């Protein structure tokens, strides 16, 4: 359980940071840097979105694994999983999941 929670928390942070960076870059690019034109976007920007795609898959795997162990309902599990696609929401999901798992006494800290 401890390992599963740690894996989920790590992926929530990594996925969240990558998504937040890409999202802020998108907003700034759209407003100030003419990112409507694909040629104006640097390669790193595209790689960031690709990275988020694959990291999100790992987030799904760790999230489902944890949901099985904690025995979350389907609805709650889906909520946790979808949080990884909404900018900044994976941090919120991670906060509640961590608090909840501790409150259930499944881990000690």
């Amino acid at each position, binding site marked *: 359980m401890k390992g599963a929670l740690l894996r989920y928390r790590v992926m929530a942070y990594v996925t969240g940071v990558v998504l937040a960076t890409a999202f802020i870059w998108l907003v700034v690019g759209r407003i100030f840097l003419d990112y409507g034109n694909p040629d104006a976007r640097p390669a790193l920007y595209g790689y960031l979105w690709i990275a988020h795609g694959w990291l999100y898959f790992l987030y799904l795997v760790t999230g489902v694994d944890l949901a*099985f162990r904690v025995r979350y309902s389907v609805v709650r599990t889906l909520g946790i999983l979808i949080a990884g696609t909404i900018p900044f929401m994976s941090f919120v999901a991670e906060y509640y999941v961590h608090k909840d798992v501790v409150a259930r006494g499944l881990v000690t800290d």
Partner: protein
Amino acid sequence: MSRPEPRSVLRLALTPRWLVAAALMVLFVVAAVFLGRWQWERTQSILVAERAAISEAIPIEEVLGADANPPTAVPDEGIGRPVTLSGRYEPAMQVAVTNREHEGRPGVWIVTGLRLPDGRIAAVLRGWLETPEGAAAVAPTGPVAVSGILQPDETFYADAASTPGTVAAIDHARLADLWQEPLLPGFTVLEAQEPSLSPAPVPVLPTVQTADVPFPLQNFAYAFQWWIFALFAMVVYARWLYVDAQGVHYGEGS
């Protein structure tokens, strides 16, 4: 937790709750497969559009700049690019590139300087001839419109000795020395010319191909990611059903 019997798993799968779950799973899988296909098609259509954009001929000035000080080499994106040139050939600016065969026959390439409307000179590889003498080698004197493929300078045989009127390789700096006037970098392999000339050198094929267009990696990656998500949804459904059949109760306390 004991291993559930296959029949009890099947019975559970046919309960209303699990039929709804199955329907949702199938819905997601179908949507993900279609979204993956959509990204795949976008990858293809972006490539097609990019390739079409670089296969359209543009004036050579757009590739090499209209500057009085042109670049010293053809920029990468200009290599293999279809270009058009208009102007007049300079009869005094012509060389034969030695040792160039065509369909197994030895001969020379005829390179002539073409004066663009802005006064700058561009080298045009007009084609192949068996010998540099004869009527076919003589460039037309009137205004011409040339279309062809832009090539980088041939950097080999830099030190080769040559007789007057011949070179071993096409290099714009070398030709500039010969013709006593600066030249645009690279040269254009003639494909068509207006007005056409007869007799004329046999047009040759460009040797350096264009670099391919940038690959739309993001759409390509997203296509596979959607398909993996579809697979993942099926795995999660199966695993969840199996665990439920083991009698583990989910959703407690939520």
